[in-house]
């Protein structure tokens, strides 16, 4: 079930009403009210997920059961080694399932090419279950956190299933941590008016970004990418820029809808995007883009590998050479950076272009790391922190900041070309096509009815995000007059309905395929 579908528009109010009126208010005197409410969340989530293909439910049920049992196994294992063995077994099985469904055919193809073997009998042609990477990573984080004793394992399978399959974030994140989400399912939720209203606003903003911005960009981008060889350089550049907005509108739009929907149910999900295109360098960009994935890799891969402060081996320490130790530390940090960027790229899909995309960003990140400038910008651009801790925003960035943002944006655009290309040949054709004499020609613009509303919608999105860059989403309006707020909501709503009617073909969210 897509968030931008008619089915979801029916599904959400029904689930919302049942959740609060039947499983909360009507059962308030029932001792097992929380259990029933969580069970209802599970049923609703399974209906939501099974809407694609009921067979996907088997896989998520297996992952749920294994991870749940692994938590108990870790708790009851008598020795530390035993606990570790249970955790590793769970990781292997979960990654094994992910590997078979997502990467097996890719590796089989590469293997067959390398050794010149007939391919057909090697391939499984499995359908990739929607969102498998997201819930697998969430399941892994649970067993690792239990092993690390950051959370107590739950003995309640219903609560655990609700945590792993909670429908707003099931198919494309944010990849939640058990430490954040599981406790919320373990205690009684109460309806909070302000949170619910903010959730509605965030849903509205997410739908705007998805339906109005991303889907319209997709029309142009898909046409250009379908026939790269016959496009002028300027058209290819424009398509790359529009894809940059498309993927942001698509994915952050999804995240906004997911977080907003969760708020309606009294659940607070972690933030997944924090105005990444207003970043002043690539390191800041990665602190603001797909936060739940980058922090996952940081916590479960980067830091265990030593991060940027690895343990110095005894052999080096004994030499007492501080310069050598510093060099070793740098080397490990660079290695770990490459590892997480390559893994992050490969997480997106079984294609060399994703790996290359990861490597490209690692190459941009490493110089900042080596110069110790990767943590320069931890605040938000064009803001002043007052002595009392409040953050004051400026209307415009300085010239330097604007230049930095533009450069970072340009670097991100180039990265998205790598990301969007279907293969290495396409990628090289695209890049060669850009650096052509036609780079300075007028790009193909479809027609005025298309590009004028598109430009306006992109500007509205950027303006909304810029004004509210220190807040959670672009529609966190700070306007006192209620009717002004309502007019803005209605205009955005009309925009969304207009494009729902115009674009009759529903566009899937890009990140569903990952």
């Amino acid at each position, binding site marked *: 079930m897509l968030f931008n579908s008619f089915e979801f528009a029916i599904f959400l109010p029904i689930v919302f009403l049942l959740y609060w009126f039947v499983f909360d208010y009507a059962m308030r005197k029932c001792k097992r009210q929380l259990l029933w409410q969580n069970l209802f969340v599970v049923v609703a989530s399974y209906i939501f997920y099974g809407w694609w293909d009921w067979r996907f439910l088997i896989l998520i049920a297996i992952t749920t059961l294994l991870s749940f049992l692994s938590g108990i196994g870790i708790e009851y294992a008598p020795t530390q080694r035993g606990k570790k063995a249970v955790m590793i077994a769970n990781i292997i099985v979960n990654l094994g399932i992910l590997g078979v469904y997502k990467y097996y055919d890719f590796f089989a193809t590469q293997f067959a090419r390398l050794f010149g073997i007939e391919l057909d009998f090697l391939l499984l042609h499995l359908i990739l279950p929607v969102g498998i990477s997201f819930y697998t990573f969430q399941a892994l984080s649970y067993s690792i956190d239990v092993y690390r004793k950051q959370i107590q394992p739950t003995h309640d399978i219903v609560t655990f299933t609700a945590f792993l399959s909670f429908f707003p974030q099931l198919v494309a994140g944010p990849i939640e941590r058990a430490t954040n989400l599981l406790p919320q399912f373990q205690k009684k939720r109460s309806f909070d008016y302000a949170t619910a209203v903010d959730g509605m606003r965030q849903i509205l903003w997410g739908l705007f970004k998805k339906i109005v911005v991303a889907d319209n960009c997709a029309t142009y981008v898909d*046409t250009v990418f379908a026939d790269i060889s*016959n496009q002028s350089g300027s058209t290819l550049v424009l398509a790359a820029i529009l894809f940059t907005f498309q993927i942001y509108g698509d994915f952050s739009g999804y995240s906004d809808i997911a977080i907003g929907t969760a708020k309606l149910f009294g659940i607070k999900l972690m933030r997944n995007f924090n105005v990444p295109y207003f970043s002043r360098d690539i390191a800041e960009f990665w602190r603001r883009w797909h936060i739940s994935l980058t922090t996952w890799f940081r916590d479960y891969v980067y830091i265990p590998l030593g991060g940027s402060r690895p343990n110095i081996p005894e052999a080096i320490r004994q030499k007492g050479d501080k310069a050598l130790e510093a060099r070793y530390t740098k080397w490990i940090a660079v290695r770990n950076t490459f590892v997480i960027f390559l893994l992050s790229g490969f997480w997106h899909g079984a294609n060399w272009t994703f790996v290359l995309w990861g490597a490209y960003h690692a190459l941009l990140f490493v110089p900042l790391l080596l110069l110790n400038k990767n943590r320069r910008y931890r605040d938000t651009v064009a803001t002043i922190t007052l002595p009392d801790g409040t953050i004051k925003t400026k209307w415009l960035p300085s010239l330097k900041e604007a230049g930095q943002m533009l450069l970072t944006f340009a670097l991100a655009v180039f990265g998205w070309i790598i990301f969007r290309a279907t293969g290495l040949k396409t990628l090289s054709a695209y890049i060669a096509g850009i650096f052509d004499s*036609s780079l300075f*020609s007028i790009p193909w613009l479809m*027609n*005025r009815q298309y590009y004028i509303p598109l430009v306006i919608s992109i500007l509205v999105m950027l303006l909304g995000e810029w004004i509210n860059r220190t807040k959670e989403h672009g529609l966190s309006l700070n306007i006192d007059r209620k009717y002004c707020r309502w007019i803005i*909501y209605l205009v955005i*709503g009309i925009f969304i309905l*207009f494009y729902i*009617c115009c674009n009759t073909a529903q566009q899937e969210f890009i990140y569903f395929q990952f």
Partner: protein
Amino acid sequence: MNKFFKKSCLFIILLAICFSAFVLICYLCGRYEKNLSSNNIYIWGDSQAYQGVILSDLARITNKDVLSAATHGAGVYDLLVFANRVPSQSICIVSYSQCCLLRRKSADFNGSGVDIDALYSLYNQHYTIKELFQICTNNYFSKKCIFRIEDSNLYDYLPYIIYPEPLSGFEKMYQTIPAFYNDKYDLFCQALQIMKSKQCQIILIAFPYYETTYEVYKQSPFSDILDQDILQASNILNIDKIDTLYFNDMDSLCMHDLTHLNNVGAQRTTKIIGNYVNEKLPMSENAFLIFNAWKCSALN
């Protein structure tokens, strides 16, 4: 909770009312044309006509007001609406485009407003209810008037051809005649018939292709059939026909891409159409284009 529930309902109701009002205004505005004089020239066509005629130039040459309903991807439904809306005894320049007839139905523009007569014609030509419904939904936001008098954004002159659409696409298009071709062709003829019944002077124009596209077309197994069909239609309906498909000296500088003229080509083609309307026949354009411009014998 109650407050939230009430406010949510209020928002949904307000949104529904505002959106319905918006749709209604768009719908009602799409129902009428104003100030349409029979002394004007009316143009219909798809992107070839949109990019291929400079309205201000044509108005100057012919000394008439020129109104164009040409738009990208225009289909037979749009032509039927055009035919229903043009006033009697006017001059109608209709672009004959194979793409219009061979393009799948759902890819047509179909955005000329809701026209019951045109929809009924489509229904009689085996369009499904779903397809008709789709046309209606396309036209929630139809323009107030299908005609425009301002010039289109012409393609600037470039010293080379650009390829927004691949040649292979045309090869594929001409390989098989789709099942709906006959339905579309019949609707095309019906629209011409409506204009004829209004005593309009109809000029059918086939806009030029770039030479490679034209070769693909001529080598396709159906080029003869397609040519024959349109010739037959023009014969039966007594329609003037300007054929610019044939070039003996293809100059790529006139074309923007495989099928669309650039501003230089549009300027020259407009001049030719203008001369034709002024009955300055036969014509040739500095030995640049050779036109098979003729009137059907039945017209004489």
